[in-house]
């Protein structure tokens, strides 16, 4: 029996990434990292800032996401997100910029606890990339 399923990552402008022979996908779901294998139960969840890791026959791909929704159904994993980078393409300066703007946002007083939590998370993840 095959152990593969399909992953599709779409952002509002285009279909960002699509692969048929994925063995395992690890997504930063809202309540913790979630590993998805073939024949996972249908699930909808949303993402917090983190790294999506996709293991396939041809290798491993890593993406940084800020938010989004994951939907898994009939061995199709769809990830909808508005902000995503492939870790291969992102350069250090850009990461630094992102950290800086996020830190500025955290330092503003009027943000809600949830936003602060998510921003802190984002900074942690971004720092771990560097």
């Amino acid at each position, binding site marked *: 029996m095959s152990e593969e399923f399909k992953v599709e990552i779409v952002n509002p402008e285009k279909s960002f990434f699509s692969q048929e022979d994925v063995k395992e996908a690890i997504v930063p779901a809202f309540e913790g990292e979630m590993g998805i294998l073939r024949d996972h139960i249908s699930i*909808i969840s949303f993402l917090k800032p983190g790294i999506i890791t996709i293991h396939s026959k041809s290798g491993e791909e890593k993406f940084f996401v800020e938010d989004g*929704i994951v939907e898994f159904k009939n061995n199709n994993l769809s990830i909808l997100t508005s902000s995503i980078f492939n870790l291969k393409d992102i350069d250090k300066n850009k990461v630094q910029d992102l950290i800086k703007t996020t830190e500025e946002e955290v330092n503003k007083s009027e943000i809600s606890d949830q936003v602060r939590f998510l921003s802190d998370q984002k900074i942690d993840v971004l720092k771990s990339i560097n």
Partner: protein
Amino acid sequence: MPSLDDLKKRIASVKSTQKITKAMKMVAAAKLKRAQENAERGRPYSEKMNNIILNLSDGISDKENAPKLLSGTGNDKVHLCVVMTSDRGLCGGFNANIIKKAKAYFTKISEEGKELKIITVGSKGNDQLKRVYGDKIIEHISFKTSKNTNYFDAEKVGKLIIKKFEKIEFDICTIFYNQFKNVITQIPQAQQIIPLNTENENDKRSEDNYEFEPDEDEILSNLLPKNISTQIFKAMLENSASEQGARMSAMDNATRNAGEMVDKLTIEYNRSRQAAITKELIEIISGAESL
């Protein structure tokens, strides 16, 4: 009767206008292709988003406590209309069609005695609406500086709308835009985005049972604001494809009309030149006869 020189000048000026309209048509055709591709590429996102929301709203257990973005405020006193037009003119009936549709809606609302608020996106719509509805326009947004339609612009509009909704500045939000059908036809659309209309898309609903993490309500309240931005982005993509399509056909017509005009003017020019020659000949002949 215009002199030969005048006619010559007019022909030259019409010809140069024709050159411009022809160039604009070419540019619009190239841009249209790109806009159409963008619209197509953006489709999976909004479709998937829509599907998930439909599934979720079906499964919501407690209708009373459903997020306000879905169920509405319970009133329909204040209507917010987001009129999306282009930033540039010379595109035929494109902007006029949206404005016409929007104005019809405005009249209907005021007749029902409800309050009206307007946000204009794109400067052409603002120019046309501010004369009559100037006091109703609460916000004007223009994306003249951004070259392509991008999601960040849509998100800006979406966030603005949500912020106003949270402050309960309005009850119902409708967006006006042109839907792209083909190069010649664009259909002006009025789409209600708050509260979300889930009724008329029954056929797309799937029967799957999902596991939710965290629960439905929380996902839904996270998702709905994103959906607003997505809907606006979709409208912007449709609009930009429609704009280029409308401009292309308008410029095509203009080029053709200019061609006809040049033909007509050339005939007139030739005729008056012939008349001048004949006149001169008659003068010479009658001069010779009188000798």
